[in-house]
């Protein structure tokens, strides 16, 4: 039984982020793998799970979510080997500190050596990144500029949009996956959903075709550099 926990969807869940859980469950069940999703709401303890999902959120709720998680044993669960897939505000919370609502700095969970400050502009639009040789297509809507600590590996190389800083997007550690592409990025990138499932299950999955493959091909055709689109990397500073 694969247990997936959505962390604080009541605080971190704008922009259809909940879709990531829907996609993972559907793709696991399509392979005959028993799978369930549990939700951790504000007053709940952190449930046991092999994969945690974190969404995006508006400024106030993001801060509140961070406080709730800091007071919980989420950090221990991660250190015990659970996987985490985080997007947008979820990405920022995992780091050392982040700025929202102007320039005030808030302490993050400190599970990874990243820091996020407020950029001078908001980045709203398509976000594409090369991840392990494949194109990830998505959409971003955030005002953060994230700096990775020494030796930390980015999730992907930005080919369109801003991601962390216009050059790379997100980060990747043994247990943490994070991108600025907000939910439901896994709906648009079925291969990425399967990669995360494989990592959480510790096994290789059978191939599975669905209408999502057509969507991915279409988005790639429209957004990839090869289709004549020019690199519009923006300077976030």
């Amino acid at each position, binding site marked *: 039984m694969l247990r997936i926990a959505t962390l604080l969807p*009541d*605080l971190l*869940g*704008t*922009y*259809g*982020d*909940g*879709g990531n859980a*829907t*996609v993972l469950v*559907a793709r696991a069940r399509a392979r005959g793998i028993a799978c369930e999703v549990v939700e951790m709401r*504000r*007053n709940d303890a952190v449930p046991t799970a092999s994969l945690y999902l974190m969404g995006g959120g*508006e*400024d*106030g*709720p993001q*801060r*509140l979510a961070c406080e709730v998680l800091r007071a919980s044993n989420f950090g221990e669960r991660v250190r015990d080997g659970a996987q985490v897939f985080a997007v947008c505000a979820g990405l920022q919370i995992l780091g050392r500190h982040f700025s929202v609502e102007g320039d005030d700095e808030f302490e993050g969970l400190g599970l990874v050596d990243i820091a996020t400050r407020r950029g001078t502009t*908001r980045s*709203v*639009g*398509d976000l594409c990144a090369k991840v392990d040789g494949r194109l990830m297509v998505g*959409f971003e*809507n955030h005002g953060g500029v994230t700096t990775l600590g020494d030796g930390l590996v980015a999730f992907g190389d930005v080919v369109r949009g801003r991601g962390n800083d216009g050059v790379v997007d997100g980060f990747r550690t043994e247990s943490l996956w994070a991108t600025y592409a*907000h*939910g*439901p990025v896994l*709906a*648009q990138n079925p291969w990425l959903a399967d990669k995360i499932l494989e990592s959480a299950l510790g096994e290789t999955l059978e191939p599975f075709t*669905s*209408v*999502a493959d*057509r*969507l991915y091909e*279409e988005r790639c055709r429209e957004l990839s550099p090869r289709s004549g689109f020019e690199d519009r990397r923006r300077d976030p500073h």
Partner: protein
Amino acid sequence: MSSGLSLRDRVAIASVRGVNWVSRALRRGAGTVAGGNIGLKISPHLLVSLARDRTIVLVSGTNGKTTTTALVAAGWGGDVASNTTGANMPAGHVAALARNRTTRVVLETDEAWLGEVVTATDPAVVVLLNLSRDQLDRANEVRRIAERWRAALATLEPSTVVVANANDPLVVWAAGDAANVRWCDVPTPWRADAQSCPRCTLPIEFDDVRWHCSCGFAKPTDLTTSLRGHLIVAGRTLELSLGVPGVFNEANAAMALSALHELGVDLGDALTRVNAVSTVAGRFSVRAWRGRRVRLLLAKNPAGFDALLSTLRADNDDVWIAINARLADGHDPSWLYDVAFETLRGRTVWCLGERRLDLATRLDYADVDVRVVDDLDDLPTSDDPVTLFANYTAFSEWLERSTPC
């Protein structure tokens, strides 16, 4: 009234009318925004001048503003100036006010523009319906809109009555500093954007009747309108028998009637006229397309979509859904994952529009049987009626493509 207008204003008004007449004659759209923009260029305070000495109602909110505006206009009776084409920013307001110089005015107002329009028009009544996620790639964050409303409404004199939804914490926060508010207790099922308190960010607790935060921010108790089974406005019980469908439209009608009561309109007369409205700018209307009867529903954000899905009859109407992601729709169709499409399980849904693959993927993951329609010729022919849900620009296309029944 023209005596109060400067020469500059009069030139500007003539230009608004001229440009809009030409643009209508050339069939370049509904002819509202182009002329309004030129008028505002000639006289930047044209909206102020045109609004002077008139009784103005503004209607704003994420969902239901077009319908509520139409219900206020109909319920008022007689000649009412209104921006019926949905051009709900100042250029559209200027055009509506220049086109019809009657003293009674109701203006649908874009959420992001409400503050400016309140300041410019000195309204008699401001109706605040609800606030939820909608086109977040354009408007960014719904809480910022609530804050901007709050700042603008705090400047109002008591002569302006704010008619506000008491069940939407973001609306209550927005109206909280206004001098004169009538609170309406109307059904508001969408709560996903009001989980944390707009005042202090702590959790808001909801039960069936009330909501509150531990900081003291809570649902108002001095309610003047209530819609719980039956409608009571200012102590009077009214029998709603609307021509437009859904509980959400009953909430819209309740707020429209509250606004009309504040204007001194007899509630009985207003109710008869509001009940008689059956279609608003093509919405809810049954149209004909290639021999099929198609019920057109505009569904452009999660709260609105959920409300409309609940009006879907249990019978075997075919369901078609058309989704685009142009500027007016918002470029990001992620919101489809916030719609409870699981209620369509057991049906086959035909997926249309430029983002039909995003839609089909969403429905497929919700276990709904899908058909991706790359060509309209692939749509099934049959005598059964169709319910078509479409977001903004897709809705316009279907309105144009179909004919009245």
